[in-house]
């Protein structure tokens, strides 16, 4: 019998083009996603060397990072516009399909890949964006690359990669009622820190993972990079297959059934071993809120901001002090007492239809607390359309939320959507780094439900206890 293998090893072995002592493996790439910010220099490099895109048919581009999410065609910032125009002309010149700002398929690259069925189990997927790990939710080996590598993949459809070490993140038991995938991944990073995944590809396993929807799995895999792991994936199962059935780029009819069997066969074999394993009990997980300046600095909503004196090392103490100062928080302050100024529901972590549906359930019949600016930015044009068909836009608008066009928006504030210095934002995105949402902006990462509840109450509340009489 063959040695049992993890899904990571199976996908790897299927994609090795060339192997040689003393070198990384040359790995074939099945899907290359491209966006406007990390690609211009790569196309320029091709042009300078008179090279072509080897497989435009395996390449797909969109605009997401700095597209305006309001008044689509008034781009105040000329350089942003140049970047979008450059992507358009590059795609035309090199024959790469593009969902540009007016295209019905436009959206955040990590939302549209799965939506269109481009993302499939067993594929190797790269993109010049660190949250490419999102696609791992489908049992694909998906990772972020830099611009030099973007150029390399455009030219050769391959990448040099050393075989990764494998890490099993095992989630035992079931998540409690009202606990989301976002809370789970924040709790994992809170427990093991922002470096535990460095050098590894993570597979998420266990009962709680198996019961997550595809949207929830994407939220989990999305944040693998926040633990240092370049890729994080989940073995495909029936939930994966049903999500993909009927999507545009997925085979139809009998062929689909055959392919679906192959997909499921990719799942990690019983008895396969990993280079390392960490575990967490799902029933311990509470709704999470980050208090500091990296995603590992998070606590349950019932908790308090840590005290630098409790840090184990001098460096740790400095780090907490600096984070407290930047965030304008006091050691020991209950996180639920922290008042917010902005709410952002969006980003490739939490902007899919089910994210918006769950947030809308909380919001329905309530009003955004006065003084708070709240916005919802759907992850793609088609999420927006679907949400509008269900009347979610009305619920949000009636409550006082702004309802925007698809894009990355306030996740990184490259367009006009920024949080002013010193102001505080409850955000469903994935990074709370200093200055991420704007210079001096203070970001607290939460789930869509927690963000919605915070918008209404004006501070963080435990969504599980959230029941104020409807106005």
């Amino acid at each position, binding site marked *: 019998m063959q040695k049992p293998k993890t899904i990571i090893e199976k996908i790897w072995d299927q994609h090795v*083009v060339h192997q040689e002592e003393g070198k990384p493996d040359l790995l074939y790439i099945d899907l290359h996603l491209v966006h406007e910010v*990390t690609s211009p220099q790569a196309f320029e490099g091709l042009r300078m060397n008179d090279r072509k895109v080897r497989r435009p048919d395996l390449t797909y581009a969109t605009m997401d990072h700095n597209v305006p999410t309001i008044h689509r065609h008034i781009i105040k910032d000329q350089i942003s516009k140049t970047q979008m125009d450059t992507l358009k002309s590059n795609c035309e010149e090199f024959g790469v399909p593009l969902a540009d700002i007016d295209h019905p398929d436009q959206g955040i690259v990590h939302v549209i890949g799965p939506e269109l069925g481009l993302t499939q189990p067993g594929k190797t997927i790269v993109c010049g964006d660190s949250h490419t790990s999102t696609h791992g939710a489908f049992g694909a080996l998906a990772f*972020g690359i830099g611009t030099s590598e973007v150029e390399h993949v455009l030219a050769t459809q391959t990448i040099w990669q*050393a075989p990764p070490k494998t890490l099993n993140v095992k989630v035992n038991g079931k998540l409690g009622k009202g606990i989301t995938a976002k809370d789970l991944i924040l709790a994992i990073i809170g427990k093991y820190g922002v470096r535990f995944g460095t050098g590894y590809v993570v597979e998420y396993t266990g009962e709680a993972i198996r019961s997550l929807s595809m949207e929830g799995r994407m939220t989990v895999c999305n944040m693998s990079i926040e633990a*240092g792991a370049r890729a994080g994936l989940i073995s495909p199962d029936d939930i994966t297959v049903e999500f993909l059935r009927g999507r545009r780029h997925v085979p139809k009819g009998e062929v689909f059934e055959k392919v679906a069997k192959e997909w499921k066969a990719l799942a990690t074999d019983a008895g396969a071993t990993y280079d390392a394993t960490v575990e967490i009990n799902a029933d311990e997980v509470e709704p999470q809120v980050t208090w500091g300046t990296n995603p590992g600095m998070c606590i349950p909503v019932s908790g308090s901001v840590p005290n630098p004196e409790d840090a184990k090392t001098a460096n740790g103490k400095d780090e907490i002090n600096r984070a407290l100062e930047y965030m304008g928080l006091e050691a020991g302050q209950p996180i639920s007492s922290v008042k917010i100024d902005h709410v952002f529901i969006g980003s490739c972590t939490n902007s899919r239809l089910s994210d918006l549906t769950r947030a809308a359930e909380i919001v329905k019949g309530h009003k955004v607390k006065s003084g708070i600016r709240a916005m919802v930015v759907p992850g793609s044009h088609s999420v927006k359309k679907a949400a509008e068909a269900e009347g979610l836009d009305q619920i949000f608008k009636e409550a006082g939320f702004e309802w925007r066009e698809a894009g990355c928006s306030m996740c990184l504030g490259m367009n006009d959507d920024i949080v002013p210095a010193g102001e505080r934002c409850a955000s469903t995105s994935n990074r709370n780094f200093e*200055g991420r949402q704007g210079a001096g902006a203070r970001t607290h990462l939460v789930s869509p439900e927690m963000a919605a509840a915070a918008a209404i109450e004006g501070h963080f509340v435990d969504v599980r206890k959230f029941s104020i009489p409807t106005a």
Partner: protein
Amino acid sequence: MEPIRVHEGRVYPLNRSNIDTDQIIPKQFLKRISRQGFGQFLFFNWRFDNEGNPRPDFSLNDPKYQHASILVAGENFGCGSSREHAPWALLDYGFKVIIAPSFADIFNNNCTKNGILPVQLTEEETQLLMDRADNENDYTLKVDLENKRVYDSIDFEASFDLPEYPREMLLNGWDEIGVTLTYADKIDQFEAKKQTL
């Protein structure tokens, strides 16, 4: 890219851990479409105040560290985004070598593909180097990639590890795509086999 064999230069210590790519180059500067000119934006939010004046309390603005080409920092340097603008900014500013106890994976890759040498030393070693750079005037280090060693003119000496492949790329300043294209027939074969599956 420019080959790196032995590099000698002034050391700039930045004693912080988890320095992320949003700090190395804030996103408002990612909008250019060329690789050049990013150095002026390096550590922008730390280096400059809201009016764009240099912050005297940020050490990179200290004349003592002018023309530094070796950056020594805390663990997990370069975490966050895949933006290659981060190494471009470091390189354009003048840094050729970065020393830290650990690096984020994508950042590490992006460095070696742009002619920046990431050197991983132990926590104690980096701390010692940072202290010396702090206390001495014009503290310099010599980094020898051929022999994978770092030393100063006092008594510091340490060896480091770098996988063979990026080491060769750096030593020779190779164009990686050019190298890969010599395997074009293998890629063709792989695609042909995939087609028939």
